[in-house]
């Protein structure tokens, strides 16, 4: 029996989340197959075939998979499921959208956001906004998992030489129609894979003031994130949100600016290697988990920090 990984991609490049998912799949018994469903997605199939640990790539072409809908991808996965003990996808909005539908159609439970694989049927995952770590055992014959990408190092790429097989598409259901996607173009690294993240909260006071953080991010080569309060207030778009119900990040360095440190925010960043907090309230809970804290006005400290880093760089 084998493991099937659903690849996340945009028809041109394989998303890094898939590399982490393949690494998780390597902890399970059996060869790893990667499903690349897309339109004109040959380059993605090649990239998947070069991943370390991948035994076979299944490429499925259909115009409907250019911007795939959960209904269609789920039908495709279900049609292939009989050959697999485990079906995996990253716990991104892409994977979270598709996999529970697959699990229900297979009449099995899904284990969401897996952070550790203890055996073929036993997994660890966080509950209660990261305040408890549960070990769960699946009693089902087939296991559907989504994988927390920050919990598994990425599979090496370039070493593998997997076969690429072509598989027939399943006729689209026609239940839904993709209308469009607004993707902000950003020069900075992507939030979930950045080595350094600088995040702002309500303390920033406005979207305009996020410029201060962007300047800091630029000297650090960092991605910019935010708390829910900053997103709700319209300072920055929704895809900046770090936390229990936003993105999970675990960079080498996380700088929290004007963020109080609510448990819902901590759930998304407390696995960062080093945490820095800048907050004018010395009682702010963020200081309880920060490695380095500066108490003071961010409008003074952030520009100073940016200047100091520039100076240090020379």
């Amino acid at each position: 029996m084998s493991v099937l990984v659903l690849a996340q991609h945009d028809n041109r490049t394989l998303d890094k989340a898939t590399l982490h998912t393949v690494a998780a799949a390597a902890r399970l018994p059996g060869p790893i197959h990667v499903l690349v469903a897309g339109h004109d997605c040959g380059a993605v199939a090649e990239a998947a075939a070069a991943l370390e640990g991948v035994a076979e790539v299944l490429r499925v072409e259909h115009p409907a998979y250019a911007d795939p809908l959960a209904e269609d991808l789920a039908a495709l996965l279900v049609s292939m499921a009989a050959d697999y003990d485990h079906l995996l996808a990253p716990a991104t909005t892409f994977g979270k959208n598709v996999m529970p539908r697959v699990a229900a159609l297979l009449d099995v439970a899904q284990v969401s956001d897996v952070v550790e694989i203890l055996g073929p049927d036993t997994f660890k995952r966080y509950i209660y906004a990261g305040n408890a770590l549960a070990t769960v055992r699946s009693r089902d014959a087939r296991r559907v998992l989504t994988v927390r990408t920050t919990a598994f190092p990425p599979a090496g790429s370039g070493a593998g030489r997997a076969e690429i097989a072509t598989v027939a598409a399943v006729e689209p259901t026609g239940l839904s129609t993709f209308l469009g996607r607004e993707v902000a173009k950003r020069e900075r690294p992507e939030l979930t894979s950045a080595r350094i993240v600088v995040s702002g909260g309500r303390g920033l006071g406005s979207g305009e003031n996020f410029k201060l953080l962007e300047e800091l991010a630029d000297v650090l080569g960092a991605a910019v994130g935010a708390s829910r309060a900053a997103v709700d207030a319209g300072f920055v778009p929704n895809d900046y949100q770090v936390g229990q119900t936003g993105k999970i990040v675990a960079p080498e360095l996380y700088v929290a600016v004007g963020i109080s440190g609510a448990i819902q925010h901590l759930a998304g960043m407390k696995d960062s290697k080093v945490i820095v907090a800048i907050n004018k309230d010395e009682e702010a809970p963020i200081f309880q988990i920060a490695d380095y804290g500066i108490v003071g006005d961010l409008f003074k400290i952030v520009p100073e920090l940016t200047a100091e880093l520039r100076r240090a760089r020379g």
Partner: protein
Amino acid sequence: MRVLVPVKRVVDYNVKIRVKADQSGVDITGAKMSMNPFDEIATEEAIRLKERGVASEIVAVSMGEAKCQETLRTALAMGADRAILVETSAELQPLAVAKLLKAIVAREQPGLVLMGKQAIDDDSNQTAQMLAGLLGWPQATFASRIEIADGAATVAREVDEGIETIRVRLPAVVSVDLRLNEPRYASLPNIMKAKKKPLDVLTPETLGVDPAPRLEYLRVEEPPKRKAGVKVGSVQELVAKLKSEAGVI
């Protein structure tokens, strides 16, 4: 159009839960319980659809112990028309909830099921997608805007890359995200009125669903704790420490 809104009773988001010493689970005795915040957003959206004349009736559904009636009364006080409790002491996991909801959908024939994207206790983010799959209905998850016209819903979805827009034929299952709306508070007169609104009690047996859990919780642990760090007096000191001590820049 009838709108079905499932609501879950959970430990309030402000409560810091404790893990039981014997690792058998989470100690929630005496903890403040509330409606799952995402379900409040779903309830609010259903009410707004009714206020705009798009929805004709809102049915709130909850599952679990008799105490879930409180959560249903909250939904009724916000503006739902009637409520259904599927009463059981069984541990309910997402697949079982989806099956129970499917059985309720068969009885109620809603045109739309509006529900939270995630419950803040088990953080699974599964039930809406599972229900849509079991029903063979379209799904629109993580909604931040919903427009209904001509037998379809146009839904803006919060995805990792930004915002994606899809159109789903009705009937459909839509799961809601944080930015969809800001839920109202129930007024005192409405809380009083809610006490008289109809609340039916069913059981998994009457619905013909086996709710047995598929996942066994072997152990629940305290997560690894971070050591408290130090406060530094200046940005110079911070940069020096990040360089030499932490080695991250």
